[in-house]
């Protein structure tokens, strides 16, 4: 296992995740529900899950969330995005590792999106001391399926290409 190349790939993935997340903020989503976004940064998370350890995956997610929060001057969203990001990363990792025969990456991505949004709503409920969940749940579920499908399809194709061309051969 080539450690230097592995570290380099991790750094590249972190940078890509940050870039994608920042660019995504420019795209306006007309749905007035707190926390609904495309989540394209999850493509990187899934690539990491497919080729790296859980520890590396969580590192990438953590750094991405923190840097994006700082750069977009949205430090206040950090508890939300961090909880959602880390939790969904863990769940997606578990699904990929143990239930790959049941769920394709698309399904894993959808579940990841649901977990991410659900975690954010729960944190919002705790902070606002209001039970906001039930009201936003249907829109959240539908948008999670749509964004999860989009992100998942892209991730799936990317992972397949990486495997086919053996790009990460030296670090697996």
């Amino acid at each position, binding site marked *: 296992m080539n450690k230097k190349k592995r570290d380099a790939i991790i750094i590249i993935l972190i940078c890509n995740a940050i870039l994608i997340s920042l660019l995504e903020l420019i795209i306006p989503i007309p749905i*007035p529900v707190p926390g609904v976004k495309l989540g394209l940064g999850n493509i990187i998370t899934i690539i990491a899950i497919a080729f790296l350890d859980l520890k590396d995956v969580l590192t990438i997610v953590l750094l991405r969330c923190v840097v994006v929060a700082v750069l977009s001057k949205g430090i206040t969203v950090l508890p939300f995005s961090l909880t959602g990001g880390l939790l969904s990363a863990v769940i997606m990792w578990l699904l990929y590792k143990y239930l790959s025969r049941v769920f394709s990456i698309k399904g894993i991505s959808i579940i990841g999106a649901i977990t991410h949004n659900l975690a954010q709503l729960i944190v919002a409920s705790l902070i606002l*001391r209001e*039970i906001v969940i039930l009201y936003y*749940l249907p829109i959240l579920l*539908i948008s999670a399926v749509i964004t999860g499908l989009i992100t998942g399809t892209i991730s799936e194709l990317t992972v397949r290409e990486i495997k086919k061309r053996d790009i990460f051969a030296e670090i697996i």
Partner: protein
Amino acid sequence: MNTRIFKIGDKILIVSIAILAAVFMVWNTVGVSTDKKLTAVITQNGSLIRQINLNDLNNPEYIYLNEGINQVILAEKGRIRFIESDCPNQTCVKTGWLTKSGDRAVCIPSQVVIKIVGDNEQVDIFAY
């Protein structure tokens, strides 16, 4: 090698979510009583700021919130909304008019929530 586009788990997942979402939407529209009495409850950090009876409101009323994030709420007869806010997301403003019991708009940065309660909901049980 399994080359299907969707695996069995995916299909079950999408179908059950579609059903769940449909059930929730029906519940949210049908289950809402056609209350004649509409009361708007405005809270910040979980504590009550204003309570307005929207039915009795004959003239539109502007409510100004200046704690931290400046926001303006507009209450009219039968409806209420965030009309202006200094928050970055504008989710609260984008939510638009709240017109029936159960409708709500939240602003997470300012921790302000506008909620419409009808006859059956008890106003004082929302902080826990």
